[in-house]
């Protein structure tokens, strides 16, 4: 197995870890961080798979998509953090409530 697939597998692992954290944690900041970890996993997969052209330069299209994705992820994170601050100001806590009917 070449190192390309090692990086790609690490990327899928990061994605799954982020998904787990997104589901398990109730604090909104942790959820935002988890989404960022998932996004990093996707970026890692894209960049790794772009390097499959042997002997030639890597495929530039996934690289351009990752640059676009990073900027979108940063702005979405900023919006999510602003929403979290707003939720904290409105309700006094930055966690999702866990009121299940028992």
């Amino acid at each position, binding site marked *: 197995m070449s190192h390309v697939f090692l990086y790609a597998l690490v990327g899928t692992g990061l994605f799954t870890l982020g998904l787990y954290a997104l589901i398990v944690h109730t604090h909104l900041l942790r959820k935002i961080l988890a989404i960022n970890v998932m996004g990093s996993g996707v970026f890692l997969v894209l960049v790794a798979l772009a390097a499959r052209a042997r002997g030639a330069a890597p495929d530039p299209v*996934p690289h351009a998509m990752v640059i676009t994705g990073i900027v*979108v992820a940063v702005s979405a994170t900023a919006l999510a953090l602003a929403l979290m601050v707003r939720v904290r100001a409105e309700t006094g806590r930055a966690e999702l409530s*866990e009121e299940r009917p028992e």
Partner: protein
Amino acid sequence: MKKTMNPKSMTESGKIRTPFRLLLMVLLSALAAGLGYAVSTLSSQSPGSGEWVAANLETSGVSNPVTAVLLNFRSYDTLLEMGVLLVALLGVWSLGGIPEQRESSPGPVLDTLSRLLVPVLILVAGYLLWVGAHAPGGAFQAGSVLGAAGVLLLLAGWRLDARFAGLPLRITLTTGLGVFVVVGAVLMLVGRRLLEYPPSFAGALILLIEAAATLSIGMTLAALFLGSRPEAGPDR
């Protein structure tokens, strides 16, 4: 402002019951195995669209393939991305900003460091913008460096002068998207398709769009960091 937390909700919200957690782990392991299998069965050699980009690089106006894809072959993506940045900033501003923000005065190290670093960062941003035509670099990298300079200034206690916080700030924030849309529309008026640059001056158009985008991206990232809309008006 510190509200007392309900102790019951705290213990309950921090924990998800163990059976659910185990079930989740099993399901996610299956997902990870599936994803890993899908990735590892891809063919180990695939040039992708690299050959196509290399064949058409001559007509793109730049010699860096990533910049060519970003600002020529798939410039529609980049146009919409500038829109996403602007909409995210509008969303953050419309939420009303950070309620109670206590500012502490920056220490002498941060103060001196930001004075030294900000001019260098602006220079680096200009270099990255220029070098993007033929080597790794470009509008987003340059814009991020500008944004970092802005964050450093904000941390050191600098605030945008109220004279510039109104219309000049808004013009800077929208100039990236604006120049992009104007270039695309003008190209349509002269009979080409949206953002289909004529090869003879594609390089100049890309540099123009990138320069405007760099300013807007840097300003937007710093504004996103500040969180609330700078006060405009003649006070202060």
